[in-house]
C-alpha cells in the first residue's frame, strides 16, 4: 500500500515542472490589503517584543502553513514537527511529550512532567502532577497561528514548570479566520467534522465560533488484537478580538467533553471548559502593558470510581518598556489558584487516595528581565523570577543570556539558567494501597526537582535559501524524583529526591529552499543521560525510572508546490531505541497530497506511518497502525 502511494507520488513528481508554483498554501500576508497589513501583529504578545531570530535560546517555530501541510489532526501530532521535542503516542488519546529527555517511566509511576504548555497564555499542564493531559488539549489546526517550542529552562519569563521547555501555542486572530469553514475528514482510523464561522460585529470587533467532533477507533494492543481504546471528543469554542487604536482586547473560550474506552481499566469520561480574557495596551513606542486572566475547569472520572475536578483561576500582569534608551525591561507578576477535589479510587485489590482529597493551591510569581546592549552586536539579557510554590515556598529562578550577532545573518548565543519543578499533590499527598497494605505514600518533605542549564548555540542564514540552527546543552539536575524506602511505618515506600545527574546533547535543524517550489527541512538531536543515586541514598529500582528516552532522533521533511494547484508533503522520522522498557528504533513516514480545487475548496489525502503495518513508540503503549485520511475543506 505504502509502495503504491510512494509510486504515485514519484510519478506526480515527474510531472511537476519546475515552473514557479503559485503560493498554493495561501500566503495570507501577501493577499492582504495595505490597510490590513497595518493590523498584523508581528511578535509574540508575551514577554517583550524581540524577534525570535535574535532570541538567545533553542527556539523552533511551527507556522500555520507547516501545521496545515503536515496533515496532522491532533495537537500532539502537530508537535512532531518540532525537532526539539520527543513525541510518543501510547494510545489513540494519549501521548508522552518531552524536551531533552525525562519521558518518564509509567511502570515506575514517573510521568513526563517538566514542560510548560500554554494556549494563548493559558497554562495547561495539570497542577496535580505537573504533566499534561494531552487528550484534553485541542486547537483546530485551522486556528493555529504558530507554535513556539523552546527547549531548555525558560522559567524566568514564561512561567512555572518550564524546566525542560515551553510549548507556546498561539491561535489566529478572529480577523484572520473570517467566513464559514467546513472540514470533513474520513479515514481508516478516524472520522471528523469541524464547522466554523467568523465575522465582524463592527470595524474593530471580530469574532469566530467553532464546533468540532471526531471519533478515533481503537489501536491494537498487539498486532491484530484490539486495545479497545477508541475515543471521541466534541469541542466548541469562540474567540473575539476588539482592536481599537492602541489596545487589543481578546476574549476566548472552549468547552469539551469526551469518552475514552480502555481495556482492563474502566472507561473514562473527560470534560472541561475555559475562558481567557487578555488586554494589551500600547503605552508608547516599545512600551506595552498586558493583563491576562483565565478560568479553567477540568474533570476526569473513571466509570467505577476515581475522579477529580480542578478549577483554576489565574491573573497575570506584564509591562515592558525601555529605560534610558538602552535597557529593554519586562517585568510582571502573576497569581494562580488551583482548587481541586479528588474522589479516591477504592477497591479491594488496589486503591489510590489523596490525603487530603481537596486543596486550594496558590502559586504566585514576580519576575523582571532586562536586555542590555553591551556593544552594537552583543546583547546581555539578565532575568530573575521569584516563585512562591504551594508546597515549597519561594524559589529564585535566575537566567543570564548573551547574544552576539557576528553579522546580520549569524548569531551566537550562550546561557545559564535555573528552573524547578515544584512539588505537587501527587508527590506529597498520594497514598496507594494493595489490598489493605499501604505500599506507597507521598512525602511531605518532597523537594523541588532542580535544573541548572548551560547552553550555547548558533543560528545562521547562510544564503537566502539555507538557514541552520545548532544548540548544545548540558543540564545538571538535582533532587530528581525517585522511589525510596519509607523511614516511617506508614508505608513500605515513599517518594524521595535521591537521584541526580546530567543530560547533555545537541539539537539542530536546517531549512533549505532547494527550488522555488521545493523546500527541505531536516532535524537531528542527540542526547546522553547520566543519572546516579545521590551519595548515601539506598538505591531502589534503578535510574531508568527517570525516563526511557531515545539517544537520537532525526527527521527530514519535503514540502513541494507541484503543478498549479497541488502540494505534496512528505516527512520521515527516525527515533532511536528506548532502553528500558526496550522499544526498538523505528523509522516512519507520513505523506500528504493536497489539491487546491478552488479558492473555496481543498481536498487532501494523507497517509500516516506508511513504512510499516504497525509500530510501537513507548511502553506501555499500543501498536500504531499505518492509516489514511481523506479530508475536504470548504470555505463559504
Amino acid at each position, binding site marked *: 500500500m505504502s509502495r503504491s502511494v510512494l509510486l504515485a507520488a514519484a510519478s506526480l513528481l515527474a510531472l511537476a515542472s519546475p515552473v*514557479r508554483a*503559485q*503560493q498554493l498554501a495561501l*500566503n495570507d*500576508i*501577501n493577499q492582504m*490589503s*495595505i*490597510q490590513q497589513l*497595518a493590523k*498584523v*501583529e*508581528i511578535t*509574540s*504578545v508575551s514577554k517583550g*517584543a524581540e*524577534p*525570535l*531570530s*535574535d*532570541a538567545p535560546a533553542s*527556539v*523552533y*517555530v511551527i507556522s500555520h502553513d507547516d501545521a496545515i501541510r503536515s496533515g496532522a489532526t491532533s495537537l500532539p501530532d502537530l508537535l512532531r514537527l518540532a525537532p526539539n521535542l520527543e513525541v510518543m503516542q501510547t494510545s489513540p488519546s494519549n501521548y508522552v511529550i518531552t524536551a531533552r529527555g525525562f519521558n518518564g517511566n*509509567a511502570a*515506575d*509511576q514517573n*510521568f*513526563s512532567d517538566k514542560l510548560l504548555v500554554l494556549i494563548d497564555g493559558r497554562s495547561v499542564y495539570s497542577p496535580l*502532577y505537573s504533566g499534561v*493531559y*494531552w487528550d484534553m488539549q485541542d486547537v483546530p489546526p485551522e486556528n493555529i497561528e*504558530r507554535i513556539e517550542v523552546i527547549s531548555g529552562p525558560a522559567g524566568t519569563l514564561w512561567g512555572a514548570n518550564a524546566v525542560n521547555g515551553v510549548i507556546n501555542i498561539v491561535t489566529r486572530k478572529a480577523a484572520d479566520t473570517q467566513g464559514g469553514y467546513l472540514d470533513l475528514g474520513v479515514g481508516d482510523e478516524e472520522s471528523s467534522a469541524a464547522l466554523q464561522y467568523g465575522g465582524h460585529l463592527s470595524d474593530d470587533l471580530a469574532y469566530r465560533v467553532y464546533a468540532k467532533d471526531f471519533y478515533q477507533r481503537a489501536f491494537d494492543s498487539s498486532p491484530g488484537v484490539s486495545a479497545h481504546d477508541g475515543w471521541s471528543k466534541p469541542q466548541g469554542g469562540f474567540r473575539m478580538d476588539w482592536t481599537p487604536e492602541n489596545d487589543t482586547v481578546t476574549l476566548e473560550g472552549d468547552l469539551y467533553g469526551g469518552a*475514552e474506552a*480502555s481495556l482492563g*481499566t*474502566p472507561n*473514562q469520561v473527560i470534560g472541561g471548559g475555559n475562558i481567557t480574557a487578555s488586554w494589551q495596551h500600547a503605552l508608547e*513606542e516599545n512600551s506595552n502593558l498586558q493583563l491576562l486572566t483565565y478560568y479553567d475547569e477540568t474533570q*476526569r472520572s473513571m466509570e467505577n470510581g*476515581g475522579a477529580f475536578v480542578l478549577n483554576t483561576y489565574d491573573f497575570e500582569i506584564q509591562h515592558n518598556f525601555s529605560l534610558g534608551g538602552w535597557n529593554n525591561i519586562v517585568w510582571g507578576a502573576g497569581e494562580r489558584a488551583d482548587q481541586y477535589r479528588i474522589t479516591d*479510587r477504592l477497591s479491594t485489590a488496589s486503591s*489510590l487516595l489523596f490525603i487530603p482529597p481537596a486543596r486550594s493551591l496558590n502559586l504566585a510569581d514576580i519576575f523582571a528581565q532586562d536586555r542590555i546592549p553591551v556593544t*552594537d552586536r552583543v546583547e546581555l539579557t539578565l532575568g530573575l523570577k521569584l516563585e512562591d510554590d504551594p508546597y515549597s515556598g519561594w524559589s529564585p529562578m535566575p537566567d543570564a543570556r548573551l547574544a552576539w550577532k557576528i*553579522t*546580520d545573518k549569524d548569531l551566537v548565543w550562550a546561557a545559564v539558567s535555573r528552573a524547578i519543578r515544584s512539588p505537587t499533590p501527587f508527590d506529597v499527598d498520594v497514598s*496507594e494501597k494493595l489490598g489493605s497494605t499501604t*505500599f*506507597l505514600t507521598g512525602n511531605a518533605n518532597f523537594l523541588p526537582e532542580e535544573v541548572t542549564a548551560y547552553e550555547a548555540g548558533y543560528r545562521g*542564514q547562510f544564503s*537566502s535559501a539555507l*538557514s541552520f540552527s545548532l544548540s548544545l546543552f548540558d543540564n545538571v539536575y538535582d533532587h530528581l524524583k525517585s522511589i525510596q*524506602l519509607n523511614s516511617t511505618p506508614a508505608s513500605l*515506600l515513599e517518594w524521595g529526591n535521591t537521584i541526580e545527574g546530567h543530560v547533555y546533547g545537541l539539537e539542530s*535543524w536546517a*531549512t533549505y529552499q532547494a527550488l522555488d517550489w521545493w523546500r527541505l527541512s531536516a532535524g537531528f538531536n542527540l542526547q546522553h543521560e547520566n543519572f546516579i543515586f545521590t551519595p548515601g541514598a*539506598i538505591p*531502589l*529500582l534503578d535510574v531508568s525510572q527517570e525516563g526511557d528516552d531515545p539517544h537520537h532522533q532525526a527527521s527530514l521533511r519535503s514540502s513541494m508546490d507541484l503543478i498549479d494547484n497541488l502540494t505534496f508533503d512528505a516527512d520521515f522520522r527516525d527515533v532511536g531505541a528506548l532502553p528500558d522498557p526496550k522499544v526498538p528504533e523505528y523509522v516512519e513516514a507520513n505523506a500528504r497530497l493536497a489539491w487546491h480545487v478552488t479558492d473555496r475548496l481543498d481536498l487532501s489525502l494523507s497517509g500516516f506511518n506508511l513504512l510499516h503495518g504497525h509500530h510501537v513508540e513507548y511502553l*506501555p503503549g499500543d501498536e500504531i497502525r499505518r492509516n489514511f485520511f481523506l479530508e475536504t475543506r470548504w470555505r463559504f
Partner: protein
Amino acid sequence: MALLKRNSRAGTWRSCRHAAVLLLTLAAAGQQARAQSSLEYEVKAAYLVKFAPFIEWPDTAFSSTGAPLTICVVGPDPFGQLLDRAAAGARDGDRPVIIRRLAEPDAACQILFVGGDDRAVESELEAVKDRPVVTVTDSGASAHGIISFAVISNHVRFDIDEAEADSVSIHISSKLLDLAHVVRKGARP
C-alpha cells in the same frame, strides 16, 4: 539488602506496577528561528510591493513605458525569499514588478530598500538623494528614507517624508499618506 531489593523488584514491585496502571489512568493516562522575525519581514515585504500603486513617479524614473517597476534591496537583505514571494506575479498597472539585490544603490530602482548599519544607510541614501527613487528604511534605523518602517506596539507601520518625495517629483497618494503613522508634510499645491 539484596533480599529486600529482590523482594521489592519481584514481589511488591510487580504489584506496584499494577497499581501504576490504575494511577496512569487517573494521573497521567494521562525556525526555524527566523519565523518570528520573518513574520515582521513578511509584512514589510508585502508593504514594499503594495506601496507602488499609491505612488506616481516622474516619467524620467523609467527607461521606457513598459519597463518593469524595480524594487531593489541594497545592503544586508533581511527578506530572503519573502520579498520574491510577495512580488511573484505582482504588477503595477502595465508594469511587471521585479526584485533586484544590489551592492550599490542604483537610480534604475523605483523603490529602494536600504539596509545595514546607520552609517551605511546614510551614505546610500545620500547616493540617490536627487533621484526619483522612493527610498525605504527599516524600523530602528536612525536615518530615514522617504518611507521609513516603524514597529509600533507589535504592528508594522510606516512614516512618510512627503517633503522629500516632493523634492524629487514623486507624488504620493493621499490614501497612502492617510495610512502612514507620521507624515512630514510637503508643500501643497
